């Protein structure tokens, strides 16, 4: 198939939607499909061959904050040209309701259109009601995909109909092997954490509380923590004697992140809530790590109810310490969980997810001609 994918956010800026589009495109290309991605991009930077740049994203107030979006005649013309010359069998627009390239593509295209919503749509029922052009552009969408239940329900609420739930995928092969950081995991054991340190729902505080009982009697046990936030503030939560056992790496790049995962013995996901999927946990599973995670629905699902990883009572440092201690003392169990995690995460591998997306494409192109420009 010839597939045209529209991405609303800058290609060179790290972001969930961009990474999703990149991984989807590469998975589809692996399956021998022809893929073209149109995205705002800085043309001075090298781009993969399948990306067509559509100018730069500009900062503009939208939905209560400042967003970097691509709009205006230049962007519109580039989208029009891309649609006209692409000869696509299907247009796949991501985040179509955001005023950027995806919306422009839906507005200008005629033919089979699939759209994926990544976030719950803003409360703009009033906006939709007063903008018939917006409504008709979004109603042209033939196949709707949502990456989470929250995204799906607002999509349905605003436009009626239904959306297929296809979660974000994980590029498991990217995480499978990597060189650990020098000096890690070390002989005393290392527990890893990845995420926003100062966001309470990410649960770092729970892990830090559990570290004291864990460290008692385990002289070499260390914590390796990566992610944005105030490291000093978090370090102060540990008793003075243990502060040098926690290493804070700050925010890390994608490649670095994979190495961090391979530098720990156990990965901890102490989130107290707010996760619709838990992509970070899935990435740790793809690295073959034994997981200790809080018993929230997202983790319970991805860890197959406790078969592919250990679950502990949400927000309970004592339970976290108990479960982790048992795991630290049982290398056989850790090896078992590692195998189980790799097996479980295969369900979320991009190969499978891309095939699910492909079946949506195949459904909407039945009996239709190729994508062109609406008159």
């Amino acid at each position, binding site marked *: 198939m010839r597939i045209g994918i529209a991405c609303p956010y800058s290609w060179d800026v790290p972001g969930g939607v961009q990474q999703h589009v990149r991984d989807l495109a590469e998975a589809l290309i692996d399956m021998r499909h022809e893929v073209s991605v149109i995205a705002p991009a800085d043309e001075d930077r090298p781009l993969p061959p399948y990306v067509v740049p559509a100018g730069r994203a*500009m*900062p*503009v*107030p*939208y*939905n*209560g904050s400042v967003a970097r*979006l*691509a*709009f*205006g*005649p*230049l*962007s*519109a*013309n580039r989208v029009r040209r891309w649609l006209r010359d692409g000869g696509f069998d299907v247009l796949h627009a991501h985040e179509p309701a955001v*005023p*950027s*390239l995806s*919306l*422009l593509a839906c*507005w200008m295209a005629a033919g089979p259109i699939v759209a994926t919503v990544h976030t719950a749509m803003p409360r*703009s029922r*009033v*906006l939709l009601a*007063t*903008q018939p*052009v*917006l409504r008709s*552009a979004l109603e042209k969408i033939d196949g709707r995909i949502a990456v989470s239940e929250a995204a799906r329900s607002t999509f349905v609420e605003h436009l009626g109909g239904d959306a297929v739930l296809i979660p974000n995928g994980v590029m498991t092969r990217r995480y499978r092997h990597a060189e650990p950081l020098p000096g890690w995991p070390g002989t005393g054991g290392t527990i890893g954490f990845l995420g926003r340190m100062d966001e309470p729902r990410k649960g770092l505080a729970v892990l830090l509380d559990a570290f004291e009982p864990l460290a008692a009697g385990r002289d070499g046990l260390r914590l390796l923590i990566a992610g944005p936030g105030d490291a000093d503030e978090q370090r102060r939560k540990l008793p003075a004697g243990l502060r040098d056992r926690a290493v804070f790496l700050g925010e890390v790049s994608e490649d670095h992140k994979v190495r961090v995962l391979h530098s720990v013995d156990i990965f901890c996901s102490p989130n107290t809530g707010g996760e619709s999927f838990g992509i970070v946990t899935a990435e740790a599973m793809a690295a073959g790590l034994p997981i200790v995670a809080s018993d929230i629905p997202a983790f319970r699902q991805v860890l197959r109810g406790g078969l592919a990883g250990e679950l502990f009572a949400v927000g309970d440092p004592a339970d976290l310490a108990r479960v982790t201690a048992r795991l630290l003392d049982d290398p056989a169990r850790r090896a078992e969980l590692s195998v189980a995690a790799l097996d479980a995460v295969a369900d979320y591998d991009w190969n499978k997810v891309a095939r699910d997306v492909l079946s949506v494409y195949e459904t909407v192109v039945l009996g239709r001609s190729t994508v062109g420009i609406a008159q």
Partner: protein
Amino acid sequence: MTWTIIVLLVLALVLWGFYVSWRASRLDRLHNRVEAARTALDLALVRRSSAAAELASSGLLDLATSLLLADAVRRTRQAGPVERDLAESDLTRALRATLGEPGLRAELAADQDAEAMVAEVEAAAQQVFIARKFYNDVAGRTIDARRRPLARVLRLSGRAKQPEFFDMDDEMSPAV
């Protein structure tokens, strides 16, 4: 002798009375001017919103730009008194971003109606800039007049509220 003193005292009191009365009515006029200037500013803001809304729903701009403007206009309409200046500043930023997009003028140049609409938005934005300047100017003078000792001690302002400055981003020249 005593009569002269009494007459002089009475004269002094009368003159003092005229002076205070003059100060009071000056303050009164200032308060009225503040109200008038505030009304003018509010009207200018509404005109700007309205012109932007018309442009947004005209179908002359691409859908993304139209949506951005419509969203910004909606927020100014729904903003309460506290968030008003933020919402209006956001509209200014949205106008700067959208009207400043390269190629927009060229695209619309062919259509007289489109050009007229954009010109109306810009004229309205200019009016906001001027109206706000005048308002803040008279508000400042009124605040100063209210602060003077005589006005404070004798409560010459009466029940009139102290005017507040209106701060917002209303600079329309594009940051090229």
